[in-house]
């Protein structure tokens, strides 16, 4: 019996090690009652001190949502979600009149510190050279708790703030752009998000400005039985440039938690947006219990000519991922890019990919997707490339590679390609491979142990995408890949 117990303890210990962000912060929260109704929508809107137009926008979304059904076309399986059994708003209780970082609950500051995200500007300044500074907006459950370097950014004319603040302070921008890329009735989860979103980041880069530092939002779900519905809106005005990073983690809990975010990007003439994500939500334990349901709508609109949007994502977390960061190439000569690494291990299920919708002339897009499956996971790439009637000379190149580790996982590729213009040229390349025994032996004969060998081979497999990430993120992503694949061999 002792030996059995020892084994059980060991297995438990392994799980905790693998997901090192699984801790819970003990703070007092303010929760909305469970369930969803017009009253709850009004409650959230009131909490955020929103103007009436915003409340009406939310209520319209809520009414639309009630008529919609959950989509079932993705290659993922999970028990039906009871949308009445969730809290739609959770906020750490705060003292009145929070004016500066010094007043943020120390428990929360400690949480972000543990996650490797210092929120004190002094601390950040002490550690890094000015060109490597990153301004951070930290979202804890439903609210933004801190945004750093706001003043310095304001000098450059850049607005970087919680979206709830933007609704109050910059209503003209929000009203003009919110829902203009992902319409209120776009899809089940996006519509739900439109009704109940509580916070997220808002970015506006004025014409001709190159944002002086990387912007970043760090999402953390803490409270039990809550959904996190964040909303991000980024507008790059004519001739501007911004690079934005997003990171996410959650505690280890036995229940599944819902995360349904919407991200909208708008690039005007000659503007460029680079959006990078390292998604590391809790993936569930080795039995497939718990983990985040990640149902996300991300879309960028290259609204005017010569604009460019590129998505880079490293997806290692979540029990279920349903996510298709897309580009609408509306402006002539606009460009869209999608670089993705999606790793599934254990019981994780991923259905992810992109859409490149070519509407303007001479538009170009590029898709590089690297899927890695291990354990008993299922990993699907789903992508759509289409050219409108008027999209003459549209170009797309897609490369979609899958790597399998072990013989109990699955990799699937589902490309949709549609061209209504005879001058469009679309290329699609796909490969599926396994790590070969010969590669493993070669690495081991040079002194690498099994896990080091797998990590090295996988890092080689994903190199094209890692190179697209900002420096600091690339290092983190490589480490994350090794951790995600621990225990995937043998």
């Amino acid at each position, binding site marked *: 019996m002792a030996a059995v117990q020892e084994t059980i303890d060991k297995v438990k210990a392994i799980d905790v090690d693998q997901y090192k962000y699984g801790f819970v912060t003990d703070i007092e929260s303010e929760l909305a009652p469970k369930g969803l109704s017009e009253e709850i929508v009004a409650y959230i809107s009131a909490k955020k001190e929103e103007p009436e137009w915003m409340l009406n926008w939310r209520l319209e979304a809520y009414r639309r949502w009630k008529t919609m059904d959950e989509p079932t076309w993705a290659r993922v399986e999970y028990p039906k979600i009871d949308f009445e059994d969730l809290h739609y708003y959770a906020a750490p209780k705060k003292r009145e009149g929070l004016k500066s970082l010094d007043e943020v609950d120390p428990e929360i500051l400690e949480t972000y510190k543990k996650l490797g995200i210092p929120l004190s500007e002094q601390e950040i300044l002490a550690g890094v050279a000015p060109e490597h500074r990153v301004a951070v907006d930290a979202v804890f459950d439903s609210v933004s708790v801190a945004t750093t370097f706001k003043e310095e950014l304001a000098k450059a004319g850049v607005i970087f703030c919680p979206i709830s603040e933007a609704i109050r302070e910059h209503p003209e921008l929000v009203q003009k752009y919110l829902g203009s890329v992902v319409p209120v009735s776009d899809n089940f989860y996006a519509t739900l998000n439109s009704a109940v979103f509580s916070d997220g980041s808002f970015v506006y880069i004025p014409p001709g400005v190159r944002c002086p530092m990387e912007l970043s939002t760090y999402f953390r779900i803490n409270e039990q039985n809550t959904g996190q519905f964040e909303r991000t809106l980024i507008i790059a005005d004519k001739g501007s440039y911004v690079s934005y990073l997003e990171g996410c983690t959650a505690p280890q809990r036995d229940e599944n938690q819902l995360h349904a975010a919407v991200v909208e990007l708008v690039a005007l003439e000659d503007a460029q947006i680079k959006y990078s994500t390292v998604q590391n939500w809790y993936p569930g334990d080795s039995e497939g219990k718990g983990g985040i349901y990640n149902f996300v709508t991300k879309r960028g609109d290259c609204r005017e000519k010569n604009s460019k949007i590129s998505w880079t994502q490293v997806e290692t977390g979540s029990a279920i991922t349903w996510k298709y960061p897309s580009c609408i190439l509306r402006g002539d000569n606009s460009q869209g890019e999608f670089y993705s690494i999606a790793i599934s291990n254990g019981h994780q299920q991923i259905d992810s990919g992109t859409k490149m919708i070519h509407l303007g002339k001479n538009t170009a897009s590029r898709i590089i997707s690297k899927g890695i499956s291990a354990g008993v996971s299922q990993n699907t790439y789903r992508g759509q490339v289409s050219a409108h009637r008027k999209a003459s000379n549209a170009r797309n190149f897609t490369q979609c590679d899958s790597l399998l580790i072990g013989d109990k996982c699955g990799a699937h590729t589902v490309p949709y390609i549609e061209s209504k213009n005879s001058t469009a040229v679309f290329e699609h390349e796909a490969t599926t491979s396994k790590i070969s025994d*010969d590669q493993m032996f070669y690495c081991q004969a040079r002194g690498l*142990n099994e896990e080091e060998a797998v990590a*090295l081979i996988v890092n080689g497999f994903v190199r094209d995408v890692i190179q697209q990430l900002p420096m600091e993120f690339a290092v983190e992503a490589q480490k994350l890949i090794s951790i995600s694949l621990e225990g995937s061999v043998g």
Partner: protein
Amino acid sequence: MLEIKNLHAEVDGNKILRGIDLTVRPGEIHAIMGPNGSGKSTLSYVLAGKEDYEITEGSITYNGVDWEELGADERAAAGMFLAFQYPIEIPGVATMTFLKTALNAQRKARGEEEISTPDFMKLVREKAKELKVTPDMLKRPLNVGFSGGEKKRAEILQMSLLEPSLCVLDETDSGLDIDALRIVSEGVNQLRSPDRSMIVITHYQRLLDHIVPDVVHVLSKGKIVKTGGKELALELEKNGYADYVDEEAA
């Protein structure tokens, strides 16, 4: 010291090695020659610890350690190096990255500190120059698109960097032109040392003109059928393996 006693080994149930006895002392170079299918490559894989190559009888010990107890990576950390006949491609992993990862993995396994990046760069540049491995080659993914000569030079570069005490070179001469053969052999000769044992596996005498062995063995049908000095290789070059193969059959 490497001691192989009555070694029998099989792959997927096929008996390949049928009782090999071989002792290699520090500082010695032993050549193993033999016709196709005699078990030369199998011997190298069994020594390096490839999975599916099963020892069914006999033993291998190196410096008193039972080799069967160790995995391939542990053997590498204990001084074993196999120069592959067909080096494997690792896409996306720069040769430089691979070298550093391997060196540090071995150091870690031996409880030593990792080498610093500047020290490592200096070391690699030095060794690479001797083997005419260009900086461009070091940036390219390991063995991907390398010519036959480049692959073998990269193998010897790894050997020179990892400083093993027991080297097995499996048909390192195959696929090399005369110039490449000379460069590779010079690289190997520079690694000759009183503390280092080498086993050179080859079909042909010509490699042994450059890397002169202390002892030559003839392997046939999984057994060593003849052992002699370096002149044995010359005799084989003239008369072929027929004598030994027939002898065995008779």
